[in-house]
Every structure is written in structure tokens, then in C-alpha cells.
């Protein structure tokens, strides 16, 4: 069963613009939440993770994500994107007492 949904298969933004990539999860309790990034011809790398506490978590390269229990969401944000941010971004969840599930990914294209 799909536990995580990324509604946008592809997002295009201009360099310097702000970014939000959406992630919705389905779980009766707050799961563990992750964002991974996949650069061309590479494996996935962890950007950030959330377990509990402050709903805004900081990651690498200026990325942050905000957990919302009421919306069952964990959206990824960046204030100003760079062309090197072009990649595929995956949201992932670990529901309670279960294993990890990945979303289908969002392809980010940053235009110069």
C-alpha cells in the first residue's frame, strides 16, 4: 500500500526563485519522514529527516522541510534555488513499526 504521495512529477523553476516540493503521507500515527535527492547517474542521498519536535527541520545545501500533522504533509522548501539543485527528489516515510516507503519522486528542473 502506498504510504506517501508526491503529487508533482516535475517542477520547473528559475534560478534564484523559491521552491516547494510537496509530500503527503498516510499514517494513523506520525511516521518518521525523510527527503532524499538523486543527482544524475548517482544513488540517493539523504537531505533531511524528521522524527519529532520542531516541525521545521534543516537539511543540507539550504533545504528545509516542514511537518504538518493536520495536513499529513512534509513539504520541502528552499529560499533560492541554484542550477545545481536540478535533480530528482524523493519523499520517504517509515510508518510505525514498519519499513521505509518511497514516493515516486519529483523531477526538479532549474532554468538559468
Amino acid at each position: 500500500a502506498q504510504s506517501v504521495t508526491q503529487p508533482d512529477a516535475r517542477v520547473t523553476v528559475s534560478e534564484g526563485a523559491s521552491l516547494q516540493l510537496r509530500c503527503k503521507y498516510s499514517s494513523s500515527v506520525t511516521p518518521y519522514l525523510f527527503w532524499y535527492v538523486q543527482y544524475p547517474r548517482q544513488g540517493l542521498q539523504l537531505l533531511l529527516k524528521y522524527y519529532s519536535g520542531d516541525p521545521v527541520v534543516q537539511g543540507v545545501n539550504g533545504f528545509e522541510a516542514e511537518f504538518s500533522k493536520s495536513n499529513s504533509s512534509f513539504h520541502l522548501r528552499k529560499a533560492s534555488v541554484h542550477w545545481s539543485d536540478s535533480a530528482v527528489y524523493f519523499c520517504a516515510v517509515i510508518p510505525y513499526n514498519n519499513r521505509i516507503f518511497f514516493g515516486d519522486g519529483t523531477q526538479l528542473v532549474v532554468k538559468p
Partner: protein
Amino acid sequence: EAAVTQSPRNKVTVTGGNVTLSCRQTNSHNYMYWYRQDTGHGLRLIHYSYGAGNLQIGDVPDGYKATRTTQEDFFLLLELASPSQTSLYFCASSDGTGNYAEQFFGPGTRLTVL
């Protein structure tokens, strides 16, 4: 630095061929995973293991076997390869679920079945 390596990086075989993909991790992690990645499907879990000799079935196991020979080594076997198994395969390792669940990924193996 965590390290997961995969071999080969690219493989071409014919329908009905026998293929073994190899994965080695030097993270001292208990868990290892095999995924396939296809456009429109994201990552799909094939098999995983939580230790040498252990094997757990994932979401898309049909046509695949796997074997965990040591804590470091996890193999994926395609004994009668089919074109539908043309894909990008990733291996990953993690220290477990929950608080230690960050997965470390290898660089991937691109398999083409003609």
C-alpha cells in the same frame, strides 16, 4: 564515510540469461536492500535482509532471488531474465528501522535485457 558499492555498473544480457548483481557495504549495517527504479514508479523494493542468511520479500519479488552471504555482501539473482526486468537497480544499507533508518545507497546498476 558510509560506503555501498555495486557491480557491475552496467550489464546487458539476453532474454533467458542468468544475471547476478553484487552489492557490498562497509558500514557495518545490519539491513541491506535491493530496489529497482523505473520511470513513473520511483523506487520499488525487491528484497531485503537484516543479516547474513536472512531474506525478506519486498513489494516486487517475482523473478528475483537474493542471497545475503555475509553482513557485507548482498546479491540479487535473475535466473531467467526478461525484458520487463530492464531497469536501474540500487542497493542500500541501513542500521535498522526507526531512529537509525537512514539508508545509504550505492551508485546503481543499469541492466538491459534484450
